[in-house]
């Protein structure tokens, strides 16, 4: 159990209003089923169940296609881009922040990356230059967010809202409202569509980013500081943690994730466009919150976020399989968000409260 001393540890969630005396029932005192429920399996139990229900509905409504390997890959591919963004968002939200700009930053990164690819010089340069440029755009935008939030003391919601609007506009100016084809970068397109062990490159990227995010959050001092800042910013500051610098890095990481997602879009659609990634920030936030991360910060898991992303991707797929309109799908999404959050709160009840 030693790995569970970190973020979102195996301790029961204790709501802030619960007086200490009522939460003294420990995990050890609790019956077995409760120990399982409050362990890592239990914390994601609601998510597992929700995913299971969706899979059953999907399998029942489209029995021929839904459970096929190729359809599962479609779902995962669908999940991968928003998934990468959601990992960065998870870290930001655990630290008590929010990043509304990720969708726009993705768009900007895809446009700048595409511009780098269609320059005359591009023929002589390796496609990795384009990738690095796109990632750099993401990191730069993230740093900008972080500086304004941490050192300018601007509320994260407003600072990143400004970036949401500004980055999208900047992308439009650069792209001149055209769609920039990067199909000429054959090697890049080939690479991004590589199939390793029957799994798409996009899915591999999502997997790698998720694992890295998990390691960062659960195994490093950086992750520990992130949880501490989200749990009690003042206590973190008074313990000598450089909170402002840390917060700045967190937004840079979120920006990097948006940049990675921008590259993924380039690879998948072979085009950089200023409209790429619109409203993706909301999908990411929904996935993170449905995944059990508290919007007030201090508690959250990367695993939960991955589940959240998969739930929404599966939902979309079920609707597509049944030829239902995207409007109906949007309504269902809204309902699911509310139900999932309500369920999360129920499962997250500390053991001491109910006994």
């Amino acid at each position, binding site marked *: 159990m030693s790995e569970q001393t970190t973020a979102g540890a195996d301790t029961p969630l204790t709501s802030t209003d619960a007086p200490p005396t009522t939460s003294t029932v420990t995990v050890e005192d609790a019956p077995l089923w409760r120990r399982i429920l409050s362990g890592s399996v239990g914390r994601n139990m609601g998510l597992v169940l929700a995913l299971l229900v969706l899979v059953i509905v999907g399998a029942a409504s489209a029995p021929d296609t839904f459970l096929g390997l190729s359809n599962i890959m479609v779902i995962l591919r669908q999940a991968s881009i928003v998934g990468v963004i959601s990992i960065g968002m998870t870290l930001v939200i655990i630290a008590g922040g929010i990043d509304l700009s990720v969708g726009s930053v993705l768009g900007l990164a895809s446009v700048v990356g595409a511009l780098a690819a269609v320059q005359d010089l591009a023929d002589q340069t390796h496609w990795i230059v384009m990738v690095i440029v796109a990632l750099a755009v993401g990191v730069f935008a993230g740093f900008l967010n972080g500086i304004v939030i941490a050192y300018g003391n601007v509320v994260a919601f407003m600072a990143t809202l400004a970036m949401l609007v500004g980055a999208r506009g900047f992308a439009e100016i650069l792209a001149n409202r055209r769609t920039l084809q990067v199909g000429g970068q054959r090697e890049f397109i080939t690479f991004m569509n590589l199939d390793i062990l029957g799994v798409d490159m996009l899915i591999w990227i999502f997997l790698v980013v998720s694992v890295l995010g998990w390691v960062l959050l659960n*195994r490093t001092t950086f992750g520990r500081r992130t949880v501490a800042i989200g749990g*009690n910013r003042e*206590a973190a500051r*008074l313990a*000598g943690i450089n909170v402002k610098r840390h917060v700045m890095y967190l937004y840079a990481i979120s920006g990097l994730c948006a940049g990675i997602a921008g590259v993924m879009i380039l690879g998948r659609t072979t085009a950089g466009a200023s409209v790429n990634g619109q409203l993706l920030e909301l999908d990411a936030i929904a996935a993170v919150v449905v995944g059990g991360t508290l919007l007030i910060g201090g508690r959250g898991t990367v695993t939960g976020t991955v589940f959240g992303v998969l739930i929404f991707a599966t939902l979309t797929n079920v609707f597509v399989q049944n030829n239902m309109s995207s409007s109906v799908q949007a309504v269902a999404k809204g309902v699911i968000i509310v139900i999932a959050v309500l369920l999360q709160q129920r499962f997250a009840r500390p053991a001491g409260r109910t006994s």
Partner: protein
Amino acid sequence: MTKSFAGVRALRGVDLDVRPAEVHCILGQNGAGKSTLIKTLAGVHRPDAGEIRWDGAIVDIPDPDAGLALGIATMYQELDVVDGLTVAENIFLGHELSRGGFTRRGEAARRTRELLRRLGHGSLSPHAEVGQLSAANKQIVAMARALSHEVKLIIMDEPSAVLDSHEVQNLFGVVRELTAAGIAVVYITHRLEEIRQIGDRITVLKDGRTTATGLPVADTPTPDLIRLMTGRDVANVFPPSSPPAADAPVVLDVRDLSLRDVFEDVSFQVRAGEVVGLAGLVGSGRSEILETVYGARRATSGTVTVADRPLRRGSVVDAVAAGVGLSPEERKSQGLVLDEPIAMNVTLPSMSRFSRGGFLDFRGERAAAREQIEALELRPADPDRPARTLSGGNQQKILLARWLVHGTRVLLLDEPTRGVDVGARAEIYALIRRLAAEGNAVVVVSSEIEEVIGLADTVLVVAEGRILSTLPSSEIDEHGVLDLVMKGTAA
């Protein structure tokens, strides 16, 4: 009108009777249970035992609305006015005058003017935004709100804390008018001179008990009141102090430190092995001095030097790197990440030492936490237990363990025993002494003067952001400190 209780958790047997048209003062040190008492009267807390009688009948006050319905209004210390609303809107907040769902702004303004006139503040506009008002005027608004109900009793929790002396006189004028109209006032304070001016009778609280009730102000000499407030029987728990050798090096050197509008030109030195205590009332600037030394607040001028190394102003990171540790005043909101385990809270400042290449060394961390748990007899002895589930005393031990693990030269302890029961206090006192004996320069702030004197080798008396005197703890007692503070404040 009689009220008596026994045994609310923070209160252990309080008797209080208030008569119509009197000013009944409640006197007590911080943590004596004053605030809990008034919250019980107002219906925020419910007594575990005992009864409240109102006009002779036993009443139950389940919530603040019920209190108001009986005619009990409360003005809390932290003025609960809404800054964004106007004076009139604040006064009728929660019981707005309306007809068919529409507010009657004209009528509200008219009645507001009437209330303000009654309080002698007719010049205040009902349409002024409360956020723009001075603290004194906000208090008038809070009082007008209390009067907008049919009240027979107004409870005022340290109303003078935010006022200057001229404004306090105004407040007294208002209080006298209220009593002239037959309204009883419960006036909570720890300023003795105010009681002399305004009070009719006094009830003294100490450690959640009444040590005296209904004493007539006129016949009770001040020394008796101080004794009733302070006479604690824990004097013997202080470990023997061992003053540092005369040639011990100065570790902490604070020179002419100022923080605008809070404190000015504070200078003191602390040698290795020495415990220096800051004694003073709430609002004297004690905690702010500590936080500024630590860099948590940015000094407007002055220097802090730790072992010949000047600290960067306003940088906690620099202070911690120089070997300074702070145990903050508000343990829960400033000290601990409550939902996280003991181990993480202990290693928070030193986690880079429990990591390799940025990766955490969980085994080493837990071993260090366990070692401290053993050494400090932290209970429960489980490094995985969330900090929230521990008692105040054990939470305090986490904060001390934190700096023991980190290794410090200077320890700043703000209210190290607030909310800690008597048994655990003795342990914490011994621990503080041990930390000093190990060569730390220790600065202790406490609102319990006896604690400062009992723990410290040297006592600095602070009032209104200035150090009034610096004395060896053997040459001053609690009365002496209070005397100095009263004189210093009056001047």
